[in-house]
């Protein structure tokens, strides 16, 4: 069995040997990057600089919370707002692979700039096994280019350190619990963020819609699970499908977008079963989303696809 205590001990001593100087960690505030930051912080202390980028594709209030967390963890951190640049870079881009690669490259360019200014040679990432497996290469087919693997530009000069490469999410959580990290049970959120929860072009306006829908799905499902109505899924969110259908709003014709509700059960993200959400919870989600998003959204669908054949995120 995977032994988290042994893993922590071994990783810290390897990191001390491997990192000679300052290192930068790509910090999203999720369980992978937080575990990584904690381990590297234990290994090299102040020599580690955590960088969080607000890409404009984060969830409601998320980046603010991440900033607070970096404070609480006592990390030496930099907080970068880059939403305008990201929206600009993704203008007119519809292909999911292109989106992922543009976002991946943009992250690196931002990190490189920090590295240049502060004389940093190493880039630490919380890459875990499914990231490089699904990114493909050589024999393996590319399912999707994870921004931190398939999205890395070829000319990157920073030396990559990925202490969690062989771990799956359930194992990372074990390490997180052993390190007493507050986000150990937080649901996964992809690096490209809401950009890959918008089918088609990820405009600021569509981002606003999917952000609100994700917020409602998260809130309703968390409340339902607290009340014992359902098991808390492994991951749960909304996807914006910019296909318009006809509806009726107060005796008037409506013609708006569609939102899909996605929730899955998994252990390691390599296989997933869609979650059973009780009808009363689906009802609450459906009504709240359509009422909140008004003329923009007038249809809600429930995704009942397993992985395989689907993947968790739609892009």
């Amino acid at each position, binding site marked *: 069995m*995977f032994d988290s205590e042994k893993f922590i001990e071994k990783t810290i001593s390897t990191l001390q040997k491997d990192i000679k100087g300052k290192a930068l960690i790509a910090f999203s505030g999720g369980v992978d990057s937080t575990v990584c930051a904690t381990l590297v912080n234990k290994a090299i202390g102040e020599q580690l600089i955590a960088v969080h980028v607000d890409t404009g594709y984060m969830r409601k209030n998320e980046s603010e919370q991440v900033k607070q967390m970096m404070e609480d963890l006592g990390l030496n951190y930099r907080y970068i707002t880059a939403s305008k640049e990201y929206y600009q870079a993704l203008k007119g881009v519809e292909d999911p692979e292109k989106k992922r690669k543009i976002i991946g490259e943009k992250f690196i360019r931002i990190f490189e700039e920090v590295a240049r200014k502060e004389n940093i040679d190493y880039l630490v990432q919380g890459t875990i096994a499914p990231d490089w*497996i*699904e990114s493909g290469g050589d024999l393996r*087919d590319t399912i999707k280019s994870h921004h931190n693997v398939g999205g890395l530009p070829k000319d990157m000069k920073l030396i990559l350190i990925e202490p969690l490469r062989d771990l*799956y999410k359930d194992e990372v959580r074990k390490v997180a619990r052993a390190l007493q990290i507050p986000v150990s049970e937080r649901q996964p959120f992809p690096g490209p963020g809401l950009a890959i929860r918008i089918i088609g072009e990820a405009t600021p306006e569509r981002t606003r819609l999917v952000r609100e829908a994700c917020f409602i799905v998260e809130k309703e499902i968390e409340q339902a699970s607290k009340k014992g109505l359902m098991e808390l899924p492994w991951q749960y969110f909304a996807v914006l499908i910019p296909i318009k259908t006809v509806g009726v709003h107060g005796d008037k014709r409506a013609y708006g977008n569609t939102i899909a509700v996605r929730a899955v059960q998994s*252990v390691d993200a390599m*296989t997933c079963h869609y979650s059973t959400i009780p009808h009363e919870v689906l009802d609450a989600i459906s009504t709240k989303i359509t009422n909140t998003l008004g003329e923009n959204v007038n249809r809600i669908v429930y995704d009942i696809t397993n992985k395989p*054949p689907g993947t968790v995120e739609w892009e």
Partner: protein
Amino acid sequence: MVHIYVIDNGGQWTHREWRTLRDLEVETRIVPNTTPLKELQKENIHGLVLSGGAPRIGLDGTLGNCAEYLDKAEVPILGICAGHQFMARHFGGKVQPSELPEFGQVELTLCVDNDPFFAKVPKKSIVWESHNDEVTTLPKDFTKLGKSENCKIQAMRHKKKQLYGLQFHPEVEHTQFGEQIFKNFIQLCEK
């Protein structure tokens, strides 16, 4: 400690096979399918797992050195998905595109009662699949061990040698008795 290596044919779940073996206290490594058999033998292996692979490699082609392992390794070998399909082709069976490919949850029905490879696995259980092709004709020296509604040959074994093939994926979390199947294979390797 028993040594069982995973031969990487490029599957999405190759690393999951490694993880399952490691969780069961096996000394394991993922090695490329181009590794010469001699190098594996130097490391005293007790068994091999031939992983699944990228799309359609079960249909034709050589799959690295897998043929050599099947002919000369003289240790138990478990072929999974493309590894299973290659095993069938290598011994004279036939592999074709599935009429109805299977993805995700499927019910497996065992066709034999007492094979140690399926010890403690009930007659019917849930397994997870991900395949476009399948074995349609069993090789002459093989016995069919399991089937599903849309795939006649889900599991097979060589009549004399310790060679096993599975179309489904015992290494993924959602396969009900996957870990038990690995435990059984490990026991066969220990003998």
